[in-house]
Structure formats: C-alpha cells, structure tokens
C-alpha cells in the first residue's frame, strides 16, 4: 500500500511507463501535441476518449481539461484520471473562466459545430491561444470529385453520406483564413498535412494540396 501522499491537482496523474506517442496518437493529433509546451493549461474541446489529453499530461506535464458530450468517451477519460466536463461545445462553454487556459484545442471538430464563428470567439475568450485542425474542403480530390462526379465527396477524411454527416460546416483553408482575419486573430503557425497526415514539404498551392491543416491562433 502506498503512503499517505498529497495529490497533484489540476494535473493528470502520470503512468509509470507511458506508451510511446506514436502508439497513442493519430498522426494529426501528433501535430497538435507538438504545438503545446510543457506545463501549459490546456482545454481540449471534443476530447473524445482523451488520448491527446492523456498524452499531453503524461509527456508534457500539462494541466489538462476536456470537454465532451458523449458518455462513453467521458467514462474513458475518467478511467485515465482526466478532468472532463460534460458539455455541448455549441452551448457556449459556459462553465469555463475567461483567460482560464493557455491553449484551447479544437481538433477535427470545427466542421461539426453549429456556430463555428461564435465558438472561435469563445475559445479566444477562455484561452490565450487556440489550436484548430480541420479537413480542407478545397483539397484537389474533393474539387475534382465535385467537378467530375457532381456529387458530395466521400473519402477517408470525410467518410459520411451528405445526409447523415456530422460535418455541417465544412470549409476550405481560404475560407477559414478569411474568417480568422475578419475576427482579428493572427495565424502564428500553420501546419499543412497530406492525405496520410504527414506535413507537406512546401506551402505551394496549399489550398489544393493540403488534405487538412492545423492552425495555431493568437488574439
């Protein structure tokens, strides 16, 4: 039995031997992970089973908090000792304090929210910086699919039929950057990813070539 000991509050417990990152995270999550410095206060919106948050806690010693709407995902987070709030991110993140976090993460979720603009504004309010990743609807395969087949695209990144997709606010890189500019945010980093989740070597014709992207935004 262990000795009576104080608890690290606000931070996640550390496993004795955490799994290597490449086994814990999807490739696109790796790029989000790499943007977060050690010890930061992090809010992960739509944190799912908590894989990214747990990796950040174990490997980066962040103070991690999740927001999730699905009960099974919340249960998975609790089992890992993560702090997670049952909340609909479209409802306005009401319980989160202003400037309460260093980084607010929205990983592959923006396109599934009802009010993306309002959410980005709220993220800027509760966090000092935002990390947003989303699929690029301007990728050449999607453009060609629409041009030649005349149908809404379906692929590995966007696997749903148009009538039952959770992705109700798809956008291109240019669309997103227009919104970001209009809202007065600055793009501090932009990581362009190919269809396999690996970074593109150059940003030439990014709007055509990037399958998805990760943005680091500041106020």
């Amino acid at each position: 039995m262990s000795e009576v000991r104080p608890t690290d509050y606000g931070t996640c417990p550390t496993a004795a031997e955490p799994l290597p990152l490449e086994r814990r995270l999807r490739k696109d999550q790796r790029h989000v992970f790499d943007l977060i410095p050690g010890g930061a206060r992090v809010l992960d919106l739509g944190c799912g089973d908590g894989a990214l948050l747990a990796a950040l806690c174990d490997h980066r010693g962040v103070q991690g908090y999740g927001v999730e709407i699905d009960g099974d995902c919340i249960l998975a987070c609790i089992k890992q000792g993560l702090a997670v709030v049952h909340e609909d991110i479209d409802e306005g993140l009401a319980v989160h304090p202003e400037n309460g976090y260093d980084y607010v993460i929205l990983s592959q979720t923006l396109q599934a929210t009802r009010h993306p603009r309002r959410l980005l504004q709220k993220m800027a309010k509760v966090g000092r910086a935002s990390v947003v990743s989303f699929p690029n609807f301007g990728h050449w395969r999607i453009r060609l699919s629409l041009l030649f087949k005349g149908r809404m695209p379906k692929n590995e990144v966007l696997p749903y039929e148009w009538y039952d997709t959770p992705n109700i606010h798809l956008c291109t890189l240019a669309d997103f950057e227009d919104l970001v500019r209009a809202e007065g945010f600055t793009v501090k980093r932009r990581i362009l990813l190919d269809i396999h989740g690996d970074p593109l070597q150059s940003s030439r014709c990014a709007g055509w070539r990037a399958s998805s992207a990760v943005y680091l935004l500041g106020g």
Partner: protein
Amino acid sequence: MGDTQSTAGDDGVGEVETQLVELFTAEAPLRLDSGATLAPVTLAYETYGRLNAAGNNAVLICHALSGDAHVAGVHPGKANRGWWDNFVGPGRPIDTERHFVVCSNVIGGCSGSTGPGSTNPATGRAYGLDFPMVTTADMVRAQRALVDHLGIRRLASVIGGSVGGMQALQWTLDYPQRVESAVIIAATTRLSAQNIAFNAVSRQAIMTDPDFHDGNYAEHGVTPHGGLAVARMMAHITYLSEEGLQDKFGRNLQDRERFSYGFDRDFAVESYLHYQGSKFVQRFDANAYLYLTKSMDYYDPFPDAATAAQVLAPVESDYLVCSFSSDWRFHSSRSMELVEVLLRHNKHVTFQEFQSTHGHDSFLLDVPAYKATVKAFLDRRGGGP
C-alpha cells in the same frame, strides 16, 4: 427519499449493525458555527470492508436529508436493505473489497446521533428547540472526529447525494489534506429562493400542527404527525419529476371505479403520497426535520468571489460532480455553478449529467451510466490507494 432498489443476485455486505460512539467531552466540546458547544456527542455509524495499514482506503458516505447510517446490507432479523445497497458492496461502484466504507448519521438528526430528540445533560429532558442550530460544517466537524476515532488518516473519497453532496464539498474545504477526492451528486453550493421556500413551507406544516407544542411535544406525550407527514408529502413531490409521477400514476383512481365527488383519496397519486407521509412519521423526528432543513438553507460556502478564492486555495481533492436531467429540485445548472467555481480555481473536476426520468431521487437508483461513472472514478488511474 424514495424507495431504494435492492440488488438481486448476491448478498452485498450481508448482515451489519449500527454502532454508537461518544465523542467530545465537556473539556473539549464540539464547537459549533453558532458559537454554542455540544458535549458529549453520540454518533451512530456503520462500516463495511477493512481499513488498510496506511489508513488511506476509506470512503465516507454522507447521507441526504432523511437518510441514516444504514447504507448497505441488512440488520439482523430485518428485511429492508440499506438506503444505497445497490451502490455499496463487493464489486459494486463503492467496492467494499477495496474500500473501508463509513457512514454516520448527521448531528441534528434522529437516527442515533445527537439531535434535538436527545437528552439535554443540563436539564435531563429532551433538547427540543433548545438544541443548538447545527450547520453543514458542524456536521462535517463531527464526522471528522469519527474519522479520527476510526484511525483513518486520509479519505480516498467523500461521497454524497443532495445535502450529502454539500457535506462532501464541505469536507474538501475544511480538511483539504485529508480528502483525496469528492463525489458530489445532485447537489448545489446554495439553495435557491425556491428551494428555501419549499423548506419554509415544510417547517410551517410542522410548527402549526396543534401537537407541536413549541417543539416540546415529547413532554406532552404526542408527536406532530400530521404536520410532519404533510412536510414529507410536499418534499417528496420535489424529489420526483412530473414525467416520473405521470408515468407511475397518471390520473389512475385508487381502489375505485368512479369519482367519490367528495374528499376521499380518489387518485392513486394521493394515496401514494399519504403512504409516503405515514411511513415517514414512523421513523423521523419533527424537530430534526426543522434543524436539518434549516442547515440546508444556511449553506453557502462561496457567498462571494473573495471567499471562494480563500476557501478553495488549499483544496487538493479531485472532484466528480454528477447531476440528472429531470432533477428540478437541484437542476443540472446548479451542479454546473459548482463546476464553474472549481474550474475558476484550477481544481481537478469532472462533471457529467445523466439521463433519467426519476428527478432528484435518481441519485439513489440504478441508472447504469451513473453507476459506471462513479465506479470508474473511484477506480481511476492515479486515484486512491
């Protein structure tokens, strides 16, 4: 609260007994928030499972308004199982194979611990309304003496629903070094005007009963049964949801085919409430009901931002906050107010709302997702011994 469900299939913690312990002395009395002192103080409590050598695997359960120390198992010769038997036992969410489980009756109550029905050592008669007012913090202070008495060094968790949740929260504020985690279920940090209004009507029902005699009904050889039953009937409505009552009773008539066109109990729901009221008065003391509802009304650990910052600064506990979709007594938004203040002060907090049609009473029932969450939290990585 409402009827608890028994768990079929295994025997849970089996046969148990309520024990009594006398704590505090005239030289070192229990000092209450009101400034009054109390000594000696009897606490009725039950324990299940075994305390480990480090003294850190204990789970303290705090009961709700009308609960008692008998959480789980059966008393010898009795059929009724404890009020949270479905949650407490080997392999259950509060696992007695892992945890040493403790529950005590609150002071000011009437199920074995010192309360207004106890004998006042100064007069040799029952305290009645001479009993000092007790607060949630006072109840917790008494529980802490019991925890010390049992040799518990650090509580793996303090768990409670409704006013039990308020006690669990208070534990983390008053003894931050002694509490690893708290599970706060269907609770709030402060009663709303509506909550207080319901309590006020309950108290009026009791105090206007002709048998109340300013709380000295024991000396008159009577009890204000009528008033206490009405108080319970009304409160019971607030523990259920409109949908739950409708599903269970609708407009069904009780033991009759047509209306009486009089003031008999025509409807099944009337009969049910009368049954709840009459059952309650057999086991609960009217004065205790006054004291315990008043302690709820007073509770407000975060009256303003500065106080919240001050009392939360030393807190180290992990929190699990749970609410139920149909609870209108303490709505989910009340739980979220607690989550908000905890997040504002960097506490490790998890919040989940569960779907249930059973209103406030859901916290006692077999809601599978809720049970799974409580179990996962107590068994979580990095949590507990």
